């Protein structure tokens, strides 16, 4: 499978690879997967203030568990299983200890709009801002399945594996998540439409 081949390649001392603080092999894996981990954590509701700590934790777990990866699933699916759990722990932590902090939705909605940039970039930023505001209104289970299937484009079967749930449960959650997303999006856009 592709993932196993990647890992073999990473372990090949003959394979030239840019040296990093993590060493060539794990460093290459880190560089390759960092963006996926980063956006996954962010979209799963990890606040910006602790995003780098959470990313470190994901790769720490990855490093510790890499020996157990047997390519039953793709590396992306497996990695997302770690991302989902780390994000969940960070969210729980925040709920327990940072109740004084305003909700992520309010925080995001309070952010200034996009600065002047080329039109397509501005549109993408605005879309991302709206996306995060809407995702923040979903409950954890809905957000997780929606991020994995709709944003990361994992097949439902892989998303179920990453989430540790049955495929049918995943399908049901996805159905609810889509409905909740549509409702939250409408709610988000309505007041904005009235003010514009």
């Amino acid at each position, binding site marked *: 499978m592709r993932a196993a081949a990647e890992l073999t390649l990473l372990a090949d001392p003959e394979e030239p690879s840019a040296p990093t*603080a993590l*060493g060539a092999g794990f460093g290459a894996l880190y560089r390759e997967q960092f963006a996926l981990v*980063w956006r996954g954590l962010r979209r799963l509701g990890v606040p910006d203030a602790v995003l780098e700590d959470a990313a470190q934790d994901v790769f720490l777990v990855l490093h510790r568990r890499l*020996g*157990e990866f047997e390519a039953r699933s793709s590396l992306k699916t497996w990695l997302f299983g770690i991302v989902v759990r780390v994000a969940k722990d960070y969210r729980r932590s925040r709920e327990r200890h940072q109740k004084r902090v305003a909700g992520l939705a309010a925080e995001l909605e309070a952010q200034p709009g996009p600065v002047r940039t080329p039109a397509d970039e501005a549109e993408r930023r605005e879309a991302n801002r709206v996306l995060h505001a809407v995702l923040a209104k979903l409950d954890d289970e809905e957000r997780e399945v929606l991020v994995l299937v709709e944003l990361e484009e994992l097949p439902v079967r892989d998303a179920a594996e990453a989430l540790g749930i049955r495929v049918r449960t995943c399908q049901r959650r996805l159905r609810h998540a889509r409905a909740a997303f549509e409702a939250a999006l409408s709610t988000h856009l309505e007041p904005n439409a009235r003010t514009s």
Partner: protein
Amino acid sequence: MKDLSSEAQRLIHLARGADHPDERAVARVERGLATRLALGAGAAGTTTALAASAAGTSAPLAVKALVTLGVTVGLGGGAWLGAEHLHVDATPSALTTSRAIGAQPAPRHAPRSERADPIPLPARPDSTEAELPPDAPAPALEPAPTTARSALGADRARPGGSTPSAAADPTPAADPLHAEAAALRAAQGALRSGDARRALALLDEQDERFQHGSLEEERAAARVLARCQAYGPDAVRGAADRFEQRFPRSALLARVRSACRDRPVPATQESIPRK
């Protein structure tokens, strides 16, 4: 199954390519991760992989990868450094490691102590791991070795009993942090192999060599643990207090305080002259 509306799909399509980390974040997390690994936070996984390799089992390809990686990253360096309490929160966060390597800390970062509950690597009764079905992919958190001694034992099981050393570390020595971390790992290696006196000598040497280094706090913690191994817990209590006075907010404080709690007095205690 009903798909999303075209409006929602368009939003997702537009946003899909966003959320890219900038290179500075990639580098900051990488340095922090490297430091945490060097200090032993990833030791458990590495020893597992190495043990599997040593046992000649048909290890998965990833294990082979990790055997190489283990040497590259210079892990196992801190297996003894609090393996009893191997816990992410007790290791430097992105912020503290940024400080350790002399980089500017990310201003939007809150210190980990201000952040919420830590992410415990060992499985907890209330962790999500308990909720997983048996056939789940199980990338969840793994218990650390239950004692420092077990971590030590696993490490000693390696062929030849060798430990990662500065000489074996292929990371660029030109980076002062790499050199300092490699030296620290050498001291840790000495301690793991039971040679606490050599570990103390190496730490003395490093204090002189890296007078303005980034890992002073980590060396001080290592020194307490080395003294514990050499002289027994009674000799360490004052040292632990001094460590706390010097580094009252150290993430290693809990490790230093608990390191010698259950460790028996070494048989060689009487034969080792007290400093």
